[in-house]
């Protein structure tokens, strides 16, 4: 009996450790951005939340293989796609814009490069990449759009081909990425 309990405990501990390792694995990735900070800025829950990673991301990649093998191959190199969208009330605009700017500075301090910072028609778009040794390890996009009453945060983790970001946007219906093209530095 004691032996069975011991074995059961061992199995449970192994499973738990495996899951914890997998989670820690993503968080240790240099292109990963922890959205807990962003979530704490809002009193309300996100109106849109997307977390595609692990086995689910592999499934999406495999499902695309027949129609679009290039896209499947690109998705196969990604580790995670995270999106948060929030409704933005007029009272919140200044506060969220300020926090987004602070967050941008923090990303820069952590070695992220600014790719675009655009203000157009009252909409602020910040786009950052985390460059690895010979590829991009992560992408972070923040959009504050008071005119649309919304703000959106996107983080893509993994080996990203910068010229294919727009395709990821179209595949997952992520508006801020649709049509986006990031040129690698030095190209």
């Amino acid at each position: 009996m004691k032996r069975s309990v011991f074995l059961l405990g061992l199995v449970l501990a192994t499973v738990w450790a495996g899951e914890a390792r997998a989670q820690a694995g993503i968080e240790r990735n240099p292109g990963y951005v922890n959205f807990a900070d962003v979530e704490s800025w809002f009193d309300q829950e996100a109106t849109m939340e997307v977390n595609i990673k692990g086995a689910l991301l592999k499934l999406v990649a495999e499902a695309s293989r027949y129609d679009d093998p290039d896209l499947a191959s690109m998705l196969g190199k990604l580790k995670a796609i995270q999106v948060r969208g929030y409704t933005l009330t007029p009272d919140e605009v200044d506060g969220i814009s300020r926090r987004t700017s602070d967050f941008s500075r923090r990303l820069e301090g952590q070695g992220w490069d600014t790719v675009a910072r655009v203000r157009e028609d009252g909409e602020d778009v910040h786009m950052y990449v985390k460059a690895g040794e010979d590829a991009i390890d992560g992408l972070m996009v923040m959009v504050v759009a008071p005119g649309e009453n919304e703000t959106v945060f996107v983080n893509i983790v993994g080996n990203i081909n910068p010229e294919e970001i727009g395709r990821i946007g179209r595949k997952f219906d992520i508006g801020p990425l649709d049509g986006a093209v990031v040129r690698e530095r030095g190209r």
Partner: protein
Amino acid sequence: MARRLTLVPVLLASMLLSGCIYSREIAHTRREIERSYPEARLHRQVVLNFGPGSLGLISLLTHLVPGDGAREVAGYLQDVEHVKLGIYEVENMPALDDLHIARLDRLQRQGWEVAVKTREEDEAVWILYRERDDSVRDLYLFVLDRDDLVIARLRGDLRRLLQRAMAESDGDLTDLFRRGD
């Protein structure tokens, strides 16, 4: 042939009598919505609860249907261990911006991961999943709009089934269980 035709109603009757058309979990979620929105009316269209026995039976029945499509369906069903599905027609559903389903929070506390969660005025979608051995093993889907409520929970090795479904919906997870689009 006559023997097959006799067998089918017998098997269907045994499924219906063995609780395959009721799911406490789905009924509970439905009641939660009705409590939150007393003015809304949910009319049951389909409620199914198939365990390994029923799914094996359906898989067997699909083998009796001629054609490659049926054989393909039978192949997918072999990987699935449990299916719960509820489809309701919705009337008088107010704006869904503040929709909160305690059942879905509970699933997250139990280790389910959120794949997609959207909440708009006229539609709310939740897709939660659990993975094991590098495969999606559990999927919970909740789609509520002004016309329909769809709740589905699947357990098993869902790789082949989801891969096929995603390929057909062009990879859009939120389109998997929408009706009439």
